[in-house]
């Protein structure tokens, strides 16, 4: 019995490691390619281990392209979007969790429908609207667009978290003299930090990778966000794969690290959002 158990767990480990090896291979390949010196990159057969690893691609990308600038632009857009979208999602999620008035659940439904629409359809009238408002090539347009794509799901995720916080806590705070909003701010919010973390990471992932709006609304190399810059590498006549992989690696690093730390909250948030059934 014990032997069988051992065998089972051995099989399990082999399966887990094999699966991870296959699924994470693209990321490994990005790393290996980024570490290759340029002159041997286009060689055959491909090198599976970076025997002659060098940081020359990173040096070149940081020195000769505007990646640092794009990185900064992406950071600004993501930070402002988070600063707007997370509070907006939280307030809406709280209302959806606590109030049963007519119109509240209808709003929740409207938010769900909003998530269905293809961005490439919305971008057409939005482009015209932003052009009329003079917001083309303005990050404000990007922040507004991103916010509208985060809030629908963010609100549902926050509702899930608020549902698990007992109402009695607010009632007690209000009996002690706090206003309704004060109770929300000082009693409920601190308890929903996992929810805020989940919404923040969700927002960060979405904003960090956003492409349709950025490529349509923003022009001029120094104003690009990361994804547009990386996509532009691809359109060059001669693609330096180690450079583009180095740039990609630099760009994904913060969001990967953030995801590593906050993944469990996001998982919890998705489970709480009602996707669970």
């Amino acid at each position, binding site marked *: 019995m014990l032997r069988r158990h051992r065998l089972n767990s051995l099989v399990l480990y082999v399966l887990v490691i094999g699966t991870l090896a296959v699924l994470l291979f693209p990321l490994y*390949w990005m790393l290996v390619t980024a570490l290759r010196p340029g002159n041997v990159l286009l060689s055959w057969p491909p090198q599976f281990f970076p025997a002659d690893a060098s940081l020359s691609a990173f040096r070149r990308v940081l020195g000769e392209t505007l990646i640092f600038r794009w990185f900064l632009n992406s950071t600004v857009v993501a930070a402002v979007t988070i600063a707007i979208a997370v509070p907006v999602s939280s307030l809406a999620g709280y209302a959806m969790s606590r109030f049963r008035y007519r119109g509240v659940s209808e709003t929740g439904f409207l938010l769900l429908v909003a998530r269905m629409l293809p961005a490439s359809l919305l971008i057409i009238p939005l482009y015209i*609207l932003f052009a009329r408002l003079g917001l083309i090539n303005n990050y404000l347009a990007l922040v507004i667009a991103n916010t509208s794509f985060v809030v629908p799901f963010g609100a549902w995720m926050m509702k899930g978290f608020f549902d698990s916080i007992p109402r009695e806590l607010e009632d007690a705070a209000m009996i002690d003299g706090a206003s309704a909003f004060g109770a929300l701010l000082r009693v409920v919010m601190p308890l929903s930090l996992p929810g805020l973390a989940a919404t923040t990471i969700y927002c960060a992932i979405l904003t960090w990778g956003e492409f349709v709006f950025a490529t349509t609304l923003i022009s001029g190399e120094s104003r690009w966000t990361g994804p547009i810059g990386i996509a532009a590498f691809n359109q060059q006549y001669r693609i330096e794969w180690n450079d583009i992989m180095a740039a990609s690696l630099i760009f994904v690093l913060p969001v990967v690290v953030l995801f590593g730390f906050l993944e469990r909250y996001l998982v919890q948030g998705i489970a709480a959002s009602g996707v669970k059934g």
Partner: protein
Amino acid sequence: MTPSLARRRRLVSAARSRLYAFALLAPAIIVVLLVIVYPLVVAGQMSFYDVHVFRRDRGFTGTPGWFNYIDMIENAAFWRSLRVTLGYVFWGTVGSFGIGLFTAVLLHQPFRGRFLARVLVMMPWPIPGVVAATIFMWMFNSSFGVINYLLLQVGLIESSIPWFTRAGPAFFAVTLATIWKGYPFFTVTLLAGMQSIPRELYEAARVDGANAVQQFRHITIAALRPVIGIALVISTLWLFRVFDIIFVMTGGGPSGATETLAIQIYREAFQYFQMSYAAAVGMVTLLLSVIATFVYLRATSKSFY
């Protein structure tokens, strides 16, 4: 305090609390109305006109009509794109659901290091679509790509495949990149669903002599049905929308083989400036995704408990 006064106070406080609820919702409503509902209405309106963005009057003149839709029906490119989209949504769903289910079952087993394995399995999730597309372009590179190398080594092919200049291979490459980006969502939702299935069900089934496969079919899959339904809906809607991966990898080519409706809308609008025609295609895309949603929800809504 007289009863009527108390009642009035209650009414006032009810009205106030209602106002409070909507005040909390207001920012979300405004954002969604401004950036989603308003553009949708305008897009719908545009699809019945011939709008020229760069004309001063924005082209909302002339008689409205169905002509954009008629053009669309008569346009072979639309039907080709529709076929591509349906294939893309189908294979993208099958692939990411398959991998998602497999990894969820695997990561549901108890073993040391499970937490780390979960984080790692979901790693493609935060990777921006543009980056995922770029990595796969490089792996599928026809002269120096690692995929051709591996296929040659294993002996599956005799000469390198020019992935992006032939229709079938290009579609395969794009779909594979999409599946890679899309499976973690299924892993997360299915795993969350599995964790909420009571253990007693499995114990009872074991007592009744059910084997592992039977337990999986009749308990796990059956209990996950609603979760699967919603996950399929969200994933399908995502696949209808995917833009960055395809646009970066192939731009819709070669000769339209990977031009899904999302790509076609964008190209018509921003490369040929046929804004109204693009809006019409967009409205049809939207209709299709709404239909797909209802089909899935109907098929999976039977509750298990």
